């Protein structure tokens, strides 16, 4: 796949374009990318194994910390699976409150993405504006849940905090402000020339490729796959709410931008509906400590796509197996396809366009030599040589790289 005439350069694991560590090895010919390969796993923290050693309630907080931006997605997905196994019927008010936080999270995530996308194409002004607007929703979330991320609002059987009339008012006001701002961004996305030039025709993923490679979320919806778990497999209160699934046929990064902007507008509507229709009642039911044996698959439409949790219980108070399939894992496989035959300058925005969240994706264990208790400090020189050898094994030889680069230019 990597032609020997091309220069292979590493992008990552540390690189300003990447918000989280992942390693891309790009084969370059001049400014054109001829091949790319992805290596993930840098954010692996051993969460799935750790879940098996903790009770279900402890696991809610652990699973929530799989990711900072889509924390509520993971916690709700997990809690839904456990509630299904236990046969719990949670009160309607709890479902609506979960939906409220879910949509607020989607708003904050998409605004964050807009800013990151702007930064990747050198449009820092967009970054500053969207993140300024994002503060509005972060303040609301902090007022409702006590935290800007990792809300801790779910419990098995419902939610932990309620919302009062004054908070409802504030939420509605915030939606009005954000809607005005989003309309401005939509206008910008449709009319600003430099933005269009950098986003259109970039990171193309045809409808067939998207389907074959299993793209989910806005990445898939930009290629005409109008799958949305909220509509296809309704959970929480989505079955009773009225909203559209935004899907376009642009097949490129511009399409993904349009989809996310459209979803922002839909989220504002959904939040307003939830506030209006919020039913009275309890916010949780009592859940048993020991969950009966069983298994369940729970799906959730996270801001990045379909999030899938599989939980198997064995009658104790600790789960037998928790499997988390984050949406980015499904989307990362299309990145290599999208980068084919593009310019190096497009790489950051193409990777950013799938809205990668590698913390969601990897979950691993680290090794520590506790038996010997010797301090395993590694001298700088050893790490440096180890790094050079690692790259050499992958085909990137820094010593001869400059000769190859000068030859290829």
């Amino acid at each position, binding site marked *: 796949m990597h032609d020997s005439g091309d220069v292979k350069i590493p992008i990552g694991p540390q690189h300003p374009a990447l918000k989280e560590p992942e390693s891309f090895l790009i084969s370059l010919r001049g400014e054109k990318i001829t091949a790319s390969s992805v290596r993930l796993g840098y954010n692996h923290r051993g969460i799935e194994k750790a879940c098996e050693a903790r009770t279900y309630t402890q696991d809610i907080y652990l699973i929530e910390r799989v990711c900072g931006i889509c924390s509520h997605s993971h916690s709700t997905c997990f809690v839904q699976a456990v509630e299904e196994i236990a046969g719990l019927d949670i009160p309607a008010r709890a479902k609506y409150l979960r939906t409220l936080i879910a949509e607020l999270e989607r708003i904050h995530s998409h605004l964050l993405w807009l800013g990151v996308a702007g930064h990747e194409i050198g449009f820092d002004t967009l970054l500053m504006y969207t993140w300024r607007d994002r503060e509005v929703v972060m303040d609301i979330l902090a007022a409702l849940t006590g935290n800007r991320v990792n809300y801790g609002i779910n419990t098995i059987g419902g939610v932990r905090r309620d919302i009062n009339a004054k908070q409802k008012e504030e939420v509605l006001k915030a939606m009005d402000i954000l809607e005005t701002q989003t309309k401005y961004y939509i206008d910008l996305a449709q009319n600003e020339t430099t933005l269009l030039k950098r986003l259109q025709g970039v990171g193309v993923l045809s409808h067939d490729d998207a389907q074959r490679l299993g793209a989910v979320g806005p990445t898939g919806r930009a290629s005409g796959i109008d799958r949305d778990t909220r509509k296809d497999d309704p959970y929480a209160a989505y079955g009773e709410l009225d909203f559209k699934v935004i899907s376009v046929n642009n097949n490129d990064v511009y399409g993904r931008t349009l989809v996310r902007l459209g979803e922002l507008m839909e989220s504002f509507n959904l939040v307003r509906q939830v506030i209006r229709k919020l039913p009275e009642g309890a916010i949780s039911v009592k859940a048993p400590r020991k969950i009966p044996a069983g298994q369940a698959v729970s799906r959730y439409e996270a801001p990045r796509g379909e999030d899938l949790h599989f939980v198997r219980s064995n009658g104790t108070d600790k789960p037998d197996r928790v499997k988390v399939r984050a949406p980015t894992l499904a989307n990362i496989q299309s990145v290599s396809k999208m980068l084919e035959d593009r310019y190096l300058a497009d790489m*950051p925005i193409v990777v950013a366009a799938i809205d990668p969240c590698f913390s969601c994706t990897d979950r691993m264990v680290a090794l520590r030599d506790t038996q010997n208790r010797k301090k395993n400090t590694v001298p700088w020189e050893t790490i440096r040589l180890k790094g050079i050898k690692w790259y050499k094994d992958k085909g990137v030889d*820094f010593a001869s790289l400059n000769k190859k680069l000068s030859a290829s230019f």
Partner: protein
Amino acid sequence: MLRALFHILIFPGLLFLFVFGFLAEYADRKLYARFQNRVGPPWFQPIADFIKLISKEEIIPEEADSLVFKLMPIFALIASSVAILYIPILGERAVYAFNGDVIVVLYLLTIPTFTYFLGGWYSRSVYSMIGAVRSLTQLFAYEVPLFLCILASAMLADTWSISGIAAFYSRHLGYWFCNIIGFGVALVSLLGKLEKVPFDIPEAETEIVAGSFTEYNGRPLAFFRMSFNIEMITGASLLSAVFLPFGLNLHPAAVFLCYILQIFFIIAAISFLRALFARLRLDQMINLCWKYLAPLAFLQVLFNLILKVVLPR
């Protein structure tokens, strides 16, 4: 002799350029921040950055050519500093003027770009090499429109000396209007020369870390950054002298004030354009320059040629 030293070291030489450079950098960053709804840095930020960089350890990569690495920033600094001696600041006449100094100044202003290329290439790091090549590729795109616009202006003024150009236009203020297209094109080309958004492709942070300057740190980086500021002042002064010939015959203090205002106007325009656009891709930038800027510049040259023939002397 003493006079020459004064001009080289104090005004309009190094001391003036350093101080004014810091002020210009502050103005640029503050305006950029305000456009983005941010607060922006305090007035002493550029000075603080410079002092911090100077006092830091200098780490030169093993593979890099140490001499070139350290010399390039100094060359960039010197080239842009020398150029200012030929550009009129206080009035119509620069410190040193001779027929043909417009070519010398344009050439001196090209040298910094070559130092960016050489510095990046001899840093021998992947990202700096790519950035270095991008610098040169970009050079071929924006230099031609810039040269043509200045040429057009010089043609109408019938002289190859910047001081002569300034004198001509300040005497025949009506002709200033003829060069308006040239001014616009030159401003955009200046963005390219200064490597600012939308033309900061050689330094694209999200793609190639810092381009040519990836491996730079400590004193060499401080001097490179200083050379950016001085290049901005010199470039703006050039544009101001050639295209904005106002207030050149008044009392010296008023003249200086006019000069400062003109420079800040150009810097404000640069900051505005910086905040307004996304970064272009290299192929898009070259397309833009050759499809739009160069033809416009040619148009300006043609227009001025016709004017020269038609109008009485």
